[in-house]
């Protein structure tokens, strides 16, 4: 299969980030909202692993700022978390991509946990104290959604690629 054109990749990239931002905002029932998967980190990690030539750091930073505004958290909190997460994923890319999907799912759990920890830490540092164990739940739910996201994105890509090329 030939590679899709860079324009198509870029369009898909931006569109998927936008979708992730919307998914991050969609209202969930109270019981589920603590377990909302971290859609933006998921999407950014996917692109960082799949298309290493794409710039991810700056988009991660900008998406983080948007998320901060939408969540009314301190300006820069999610930006910090996303930048650190993306750095780790890019740095350890060769490590993550040698695994089959289910092992990569497990290997990525520490990355999500680190993101949760950064959010928790900034919240603590800015005197916004809400320390409950539920804070670590997104790390788990995000890991569960990783195989799903990867397969769905691959499916979309293969179909689009087949149409265009």
């Amino acid at each position, binding site marked *: 299969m030939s590679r899709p054109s860079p324009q198509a990749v870029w369009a898909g990239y931006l569109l998927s980030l936008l979708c992730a931002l919307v998914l991050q905002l969609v209202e969930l029932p109270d019981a589920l909202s603590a377990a909302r998967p971290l859609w933006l980190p998921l999407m950014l990690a996917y692109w960082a692993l799949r298309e290493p030539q794409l710039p991810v750091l700056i988009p991660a*930073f900008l998406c983080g*700022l948007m998320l901060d505004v939408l*969540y*009314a958290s301190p300006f*820069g909190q999610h930006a910090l978390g996303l930048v650190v997460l993306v750095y780790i994923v890019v740095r350890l890319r060769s490590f993550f991509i040698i695994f089959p999907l289910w092992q990569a799912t497990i290997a990525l759990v520490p990355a999500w946990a680190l993101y949760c920890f950064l959010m928790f830490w*900034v919240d603590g540092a800015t005197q916004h104290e809400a320390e409950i164990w539920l804070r670590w739940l997104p790390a788990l739910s995000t890991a569960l959604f990783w195989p799903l996201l990867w397969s769905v994105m691959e499916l979309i890509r293969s179909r689009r690629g087949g149409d265009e090329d």
Partner: protein
Amino acid sequence: MNSLHDSYHRPLFPRGPGLGLRTLLLMALALTLIFYDMRGDTLKPARAWTSYALTPIVWVASLPSRLIDVVRGIDSRSTIERENATLKQQQFILSAKLSKMDALEAENRRLRELLASSAHLPDQVLVAEIIAVNQDPYRHQITLNRGSRDGVYVGQALVDAHGVMGQVVDVAPNTSKALLVTDPDHGMPVEINRTGLQTIAVGLGDERGLRLPFLPSNADIKDGDLLVSSSLGGRFPAGYPVGTVYDVKPVAGEHFMEAYAYPAAQLNRGRQALLVWNRGVQADADAAAADEKAAAQDREMQQGDDTGKAAATPAAKPDAAPPPKPAATKPAEATAKPPATEKKPAPATRKTP
């Protein structure tokens, strides 16, 4: 070179700043932003513009819940008829209560005038629709469809039919953000309705509701006590229900008790909220404070020639028996009076615990 696309160009600078360096720079930038955001208002415009630009995304994200609402809105005829009957009955009862309320309010006003108190029942309200709920589970914030164009101001109290919901923290031209009473950043002065004990209710950030910290260990408070808002601090109108105490327990190793309360307002139900203008009270307090400051300055300036007058006025108006209309109710009137009398009203009309 088979894997490279035709449009691939060799970059001008084969190696930009390394990944680690760029990450460090961005992290430093993010930390600086956090620092300045917590310290002052310098980043407010950036935030406002971004939030304005992101309005379409918020709208798209609210579509699913709106769709659910629409689907739920499809009712059968019999349900609607039944609901109509219930509502009519309720409306009848409420209007009866309201007419009684009018009489009580009039009586209350007369009694308050007799007591020369400045507290008014707040009557200027505005119905606002809740257009978004913050999806961060640890920030209890809502967005309302009223903003500075409707006269909403930061610190304005927000109530619903059952009690105090929270206060406005951020105002944009057409929308405003409000912090709910259960947010961990939120604290408000409350009064225990049964005993009149004044204390502070802090949000817990989860479904357990409110916490009343640092109660004296002999405080008279028990399960089922109703908390009502207190006008201390000048933000909330007095007398609205805030919550019901459900647990009182001593803190291990401390000399304090803590009480927990469920919020009275139905925070996660309903789409409407009521904005209450309590600015009169606050403006009075501000005006009184400003007058006091001005009076102090005046006294310093006129100490030489005006001592006789300043000493005579407090004697003419002893604070044990204030006049029926105290100065705090009318700041304009207060400014006209000689400076020395204005020290009194603001603290005297405030109820202290």
